[in-house]
């Protein structure tokens, strides 16, 4: 299985994911991003924050190709697997 890196962007802040994780393909990447974003949004709401729609995951493959930009707003608006 290929390894994907979920870099994280919050406005000007960018945090690199050096570890990455093994996933079967782009569908699994999107599912993981969706579930993780839902989790982070839920945590934020429980902490008294507004919905963190400005955040996003920028997901790269091992060859450093950008495979998906996943704005957290997607997770706020669309259904997905349970985190």
């Amino acid at each position, binding site marked *: 299985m290929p390894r994907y890196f979920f870099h994280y962007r919050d406005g000007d802040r960018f*945090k690199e994911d050096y570890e990455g994780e093994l996933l079967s393909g782009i569908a699994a990447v999107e599912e993981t991003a969706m579930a993780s974003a839902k989790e*982070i949004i839920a945590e934020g709401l429980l902490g008294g924050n507004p919905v963190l729609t400005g955040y996003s995951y920028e997901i790269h493959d091992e060859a450093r190709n950008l495979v998906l930009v996943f704005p957290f707003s997607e997770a706020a608006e669309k259904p997905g697997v349970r985190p």
Partner: protein
Amino acid sequence: MYKPNNKRYKNELLRRLSQEDLALVEPELVRCELPLRMMLENRNAPIEFVYFLEDGIGSIVAKIPMGRDTEVGLIGFEGMTGGALVLGDDQSTHECFVQLAGEAHRLPADQLRSVLSQSETLRPFLLRYVQALFIQTSYTALVNARSKLEERLARWLLMCDDRVVGDRLTITHEFLAIMLGVRRPGVTVALQILEGKGLIRANRGEIILRDRNGLIDLADGAYSEPEGEYRRLIGEIG
């Protein structure tokens, strides 16, 4: 004449055994490496060995079928695996595996049972550790239900730091995800929050604690209490 020597060990439990109990245990102890991900106990399976950790971190992890894993106990040089044996059970309910490589002294489960039956003081002493671990687990239940992600992360970083020499932690995000009960990409987000507050620095697989007291404040009572209970039950660490 053979004289047991507690000072040979970094493990806090072995260091505190009475001379008589150490004399019973010591001949059976075998030093072993603990490579990353080594299984120390398997889920719903008989316990084969008990490990007194010298360094590194073992993690007791609960699983829901088809679900994700959650850590329910953390063990370093202050403790041991095999709590179930001390309580009279012969098998482990959960998995326990190495999350940070290290070393241990191990004892076959049968040998532990045998020395427990030969000593009146060994079981009461080890039960005090099992109680300390139980208290740690109860706080983990509390924070998992009530604390925010960054508060839980602060607590676990402090708990790992207590079990590691120096202020640099080489723990994987995969492990932190299990500790925090979130998907792995969320760990990057949580680390970023603590970094933004100046409490840590996270770099290529390494986390540096910059402000321990700040982390304790952020953990909001979820840290310190179980650690105080360990000191009450067992003693000061180190």
